[in-house]
Structure formats: structure tokens, C-alpha cells
């Protein structure tokens, strides 16, 4: 049994009357010790949500509950949060040690204890040797670590990170991902992590909240989000996806994890199989097939869907095909195992195991 650390209850922010809300009746529960990613495209309300939790912004409606206590009206400096800003926001006139000690001073921790805690925090982010530097004498990655140490040294109620990796170069970003994650695990700090980068979210998070237009489209584990997206938006936003409409016919069995296996009819192309939630028979739904889950054979073969290769891209490790099946241009990705590279215009047959195609529970949205 794990405890719920943070509850957002119909949390809403409307910047101006008449404007669509930036965050719209958000419900979410975060378990103690979890790292939750708020993931979504720019402008979907991630930062707004984070700032309301921090107390830097008042919600228009809704409640924020931490450890069972409603903190919606608690002023920011009494919330005990730890936050890392996108710009790091280190105090330029203080050295690294003073930056990290600031929160401890505010809590009136004894001087000697402060020194010890600051040293531990800087050791944790591997910056013990730079304690007397000023922020402008540090690289982006080092500033980032100072910001992290400053937020964690106070043992915050929640650790809030707003796109902490977006100002780092690609290589450093990878390293910091692992590092932030391992520090977060060690300290056990319940963390909200804002990002627009799906790889980052999949890699780091225990749970992902996919946001779109101020709403949470789906809240779940990275595997859930990737394998069992509830909406077309989520399927499309996370990873590469083939999405096409199909008529869901009768259930034909049960999958290995208890899902229903359906026969599906893709208009003008043919029939195949896919899994999905129970009760979708007879409906029009969007079907998701990931490019690397499609098997492909050259030529017209029985028992699959046959189409024409429109494009081939060879990247060394992988071979990508675009295969035309009626109205659908199916993206396929295979390892380059057998060495043959098919030509454009050739016929090819695709098929997939029922478990590799997923019928989205969301009804087809009117175009």
C-alpha cells in the first residue's frame, strides 16, 4: 500500500474571463515517492499546473491537497516545496554554497548543521569542489545541479521541475536524465516533472500525465501510455504511430493479458485482428499499430494485407518502408537483418499479431 502524496482536485486556471482555461478541471493523484511527468506540447498548461502546485499562482477553481491537507490557500513560502526553474534562477550575487544554504537559512537551521547539509547536497550532485564559485562561473549542467541541490537540501514536500533539461545540449541531457532519476530515487522525493519531450518522460517517469489543451488526456505508467493509449492524441504524441479507422467486428478471442481480440475491417483494404477493451463490437474506432510491430514480406502473399511500396529509407540499423494500402500509407520499420533492400513500386504484404494492433477506446472524433 502506498500513500497518496498529492491530489489535484478539479484544478482550474483561467487567465482571463472569456479565454479558454489554460488548465481545465485537472484531477490527478500522485503516490509518495513517484516521479510524475506532465507531458504535452507547448502551451498545454504544464507550467501553469506546476506553478499552482508551487503556490506561485492562484487557481481559479479546484483544490490542491498534500498529505491529506488542503494547501490551496497556503502562501508559497509556507508550502515547503522545492522547485527547479527552466532558467535555474540561481541567485547571481551568491556563491554556490550560499545558494544552496538559502532555504536552510529561511528555516533557521543552525549554522553548523547548514554547513553539513550544504556539503552533503553538493556532494550528491558532485559539485563539492565548486562551493565557492558564483553561478556565472558555472556551465549550464553545473548550474542545473546547483539548482537541484538547492531544491533538495530542504527536504521538500514535493520536488517540482519545469523543463529542467531543455537548456542543456543533447549529450548532457541524457546524462542528467539518469542522474536526476537516481537522485530522486535515493532521496525518495515525490516529484512533478514538466517536459514536452516524450523520450524524457518515458525514460524517467513512474507515471505520465499526457496533457492537451489544459486537459489530461491520459494518466498512467509509461508502458500504459505507449501500449494502451486511450486517445488518438496520446497515440500520436508518444512514439511513432500508424493510426487508421476501422470497423470493429465481432470479438474472436481473448489476448494474453485478458484483452478482447477483435476482427477489424479496414474499409477498402481488408480485414485483420486487433486487441482492445471489451464491448467495442460494432463500433467505428481508430486502430494503432506501431511501425516496428508490423511484419512485412515482399510480393502478394495470402493471409495479409497487400500494398505497394512507396518509399524505402535505409538508415543502417533500420529499414523504413512506406506502404500504400488504399487510403492508408502505412509506416513500417524493420531491422536490416537479411540484407535485401526492396525497390519502390514493388508489392509487399503486411501483417501483425493481434496483440500488436490496438483499438483505441476513444470514439472516432468528428473531423
Amino acid at each position: 500500500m502506498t500513500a497518496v502524496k498529492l491530489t489535484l482536485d478539479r484544478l482550474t486556471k483561467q487567465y482571463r474571463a472569456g479565454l479558454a482555461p489554460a488548465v481545465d478541471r485537472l484531477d490527478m493523484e500522485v503516490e509518495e515517492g513517484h516521479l510524475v511527468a506532465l507531458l504535452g506540447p507547448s502551451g498545454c498548461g504544464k507550467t501553469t499546473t506546476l506553478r499552482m502546485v508551487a503556490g506561485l499562482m492562484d487557481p481559479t477553481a479546484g483544490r490542491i491537497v498534500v498529505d491529506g491537507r488542503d494547501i490551496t490557500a497556503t502562501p508559497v513560502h509556507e508550502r515547503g516545496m522545492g522547485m527547479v526553474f527552466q532558467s535555474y534562477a540561481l541567485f547571481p550575487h551568491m556563491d554556490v554554497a550560499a545558494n544552496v544554504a538559502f532555504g536552510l537559512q529561511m528555516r533557521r537551521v543552525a549554522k553548523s548543521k547548514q554547513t553539513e547539509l550544504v556539503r552533503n547536497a553538493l556532494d550528491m550532485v558532485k559539485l563539492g569542489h565548486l562551493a565557492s564559485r558564483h553561478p556565472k562561473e558555472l556551465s549550464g549542467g553545473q548550474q542545473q545541479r546547483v539548482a537541484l541541490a538547492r531544491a533538495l537540501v530542504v527536504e521538500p514536500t514535493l520536488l517540482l521541475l519545469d523543463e529542467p533539461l531543455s537548456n542543456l545540449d543533447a549529450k548532457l541531457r541524457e546524462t542528467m536524465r539518469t542522474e536526476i532519476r537516481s537522485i530522486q530515487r535515493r532521496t525518495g522525493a515525490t516529484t512533478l516533472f514538466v517536459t514536452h519531450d516524450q523520450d524524457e518522460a518515458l525514460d524517467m517517469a513512474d507515471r505520465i500525465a499526457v496533457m492537451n489543451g489544459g486537459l489530461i488526456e491520459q494518466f498512467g505508467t509509461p508502458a500504459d501510455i505507449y501500449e494502451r493509449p486511450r486517445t488518438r492524441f496520446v497515440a500520436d504524441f508518444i512514439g511513432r504511430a500508424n493510426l487508421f479507422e476501422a470497423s470493429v467486428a465481432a470479438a474472436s478471442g481473448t489476448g494474453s493479458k485478458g484483452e478482447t481480440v477483435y476482427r477489424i475491417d479496414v474499409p477498402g483494404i481488408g480485414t485483420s485482428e486487433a486487441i482492445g477493451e471489451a464491448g467495442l463490437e460494432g463500433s467505428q474506432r481508430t486502430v494503432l499499430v506501431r511501425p516496428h510491430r508490423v511484419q512485412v514480406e515482399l510480393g502478394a502473399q495470402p493471409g495479409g494485407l497487400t500494398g505497394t511500396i512507396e518509399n524505402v529509407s535505409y538508415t543502417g540499423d533500420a529499414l523504413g518502408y512506406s506502404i500504400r494500402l488504399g487510403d492508408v500509407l502505412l509506416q513500417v520499420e524493420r531491422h536490416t537483418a537479411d540484407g535485401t533492400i526492396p525497390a519502390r513500386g514493388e508489392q509487399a504484404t503486411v501483417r501483425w499479431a493481434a496483440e500488436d494492433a490496438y483499438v483505441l477506446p476513444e470514439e472516432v472524433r468528428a473531423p
Partner: protein
Amino acid sequence: MTASAPAPFKKRVDGGAMAFRVIVALSYLFLLAPLLIVVVIAFSSNQYLSFPPEGFTLRWFAELPQQAGFMQGLQTSLITASAATLIVLVIGVSAALALDRYDVPGKAALSSFFLSPLLVPTIVIALGLVLVLGPLGLTNTYESIVLGHIGITLPYVVRTTLMSLATSDTSCEEAARVLGANAFTVFRRVTLPIIRPGVIAGGVIAFIVSFDEAVISLFVAESGRPTLPVQILRYVEYSADAAVAALSVVLIVFSAVVVVVVERLMGLKRTLA
């Protein structure tokens, strides 16, 4: 001019550049000539203010401490300029903070209100002050001078502070709040240190402007609390020796030293740019 004859086109450009330089040099000369003449006269042994000098001496400088009027004026000016500067810093920094960091209604109107004394002739302000303070019996006091000088120096402090605020990152203040600092602590520990160059620049300018101001001081406190500029005016009315030129040199050096020291310490130029 040892090189072979330059191309005609290039020659014309050089001619233009030369003319430009001459004009700039003449303009500077025009602006600085009075200063130069004052400096020369300060060291001149002529009995009366006149040019050119017949010889050179330091006696005008040696006489300065004996001029009771100057010394008293200096004291009044130092007291009023310091008081005006301190008060205007408190008001100006608060106003700038409110204008930049908070959603105050009528922001644009307020901002032009704070900067407006720059546009009103000082003599109008002086006249207004006399008309208001006179009936209240408040003329010829330190307070009357300070009040007038607060009015004319406020725009400088608001300006320089606003500039510092505009270039500073508000997320530092937010970071401090999240870390547990209340509004006052955020200001003292984070905002103020970050905008310090602008505040100091504003303070220095306010002090110099107040110290130098003659019109308001003349109107509101000529008989009771004459400031140094007022004493200088009086002096040249009744005497015509070079002591006043020596005093001017001292004041020029004093202002220059203040500006240079602050520039060295804070980068005044950067905060004004």
C-alpha cells in the same frame, strides 16, 4: 602623406570624415570652454574675475575655508542633499518595484507621473512650492528644500531602478519565495542585491542634482537656509574675486571623484546604458 596620391573617391571620404571630426571637436570646445575658463581663473592672481590671468596663485583656494557663507552653504547643501537622496531612494525604489513587479491599475499613467518632473520647468515647481509652503510657514527650512529636491530627483531614481528591474530575472525572486522567504526577505536578500547598480546610480544622480540645484533652493529658503549654490549666487552679486571660481573647481573635482568611484565600483555606465 608619403603614400602615393589616393583615389579621388577615397579622398572625398577622408575629407568628410575630417570635417566631421573638426565639428565634433569644436562642439566639445564650445561646451567645455566655460569650464576651462573657470579653471584658469581659479588659479589666476587677478584681483577681480577677469581673463586672461596676469599671474597664477593658490590663494583663492586657501581663502575658501574662511568664507563663512560658503561653509554654511556647504553644510546646508550636504544635509539637504543627503536627506533628499535617502528619502527619494526609498520612495523611488518602492515605486519602481510596484510599477515593474505588480499589477497596479493605471500603470502607464503612474509611470508618466513619476517621470513628469523632468518635463516641468524647475521654476514652475519652485513657484508652486512657495505658494503652498509660504502660507503654512514652512519656507526657509531644511524640510522645504528637501521636499522640493525630492520632487525633481524622483524621476532619476525611478528610471535607473526600473532599468535594473527590467533586465533582472523574476524567477530568482520566485525561487526565493518557494524556498521559504517572505516578501520582505525576498526584497532584502534577492531583489535589492540584484538591482543594486541601478539603485546606486539613481542615488548618485539624485545627490548630484540636489546638491547642484539653485532655483528651488533660492525660492523656498533663500533667507533662512541658503544652500551652497544660493551662496555662490549671492557671492557673485556682491563680490567679483576669483574665490567663486576656486569653489567651482572644488565642486567639479568632487562630482568627478564621486562619479569615477561609483563607476569603478558599480559600473555606472552599464546601468545607465
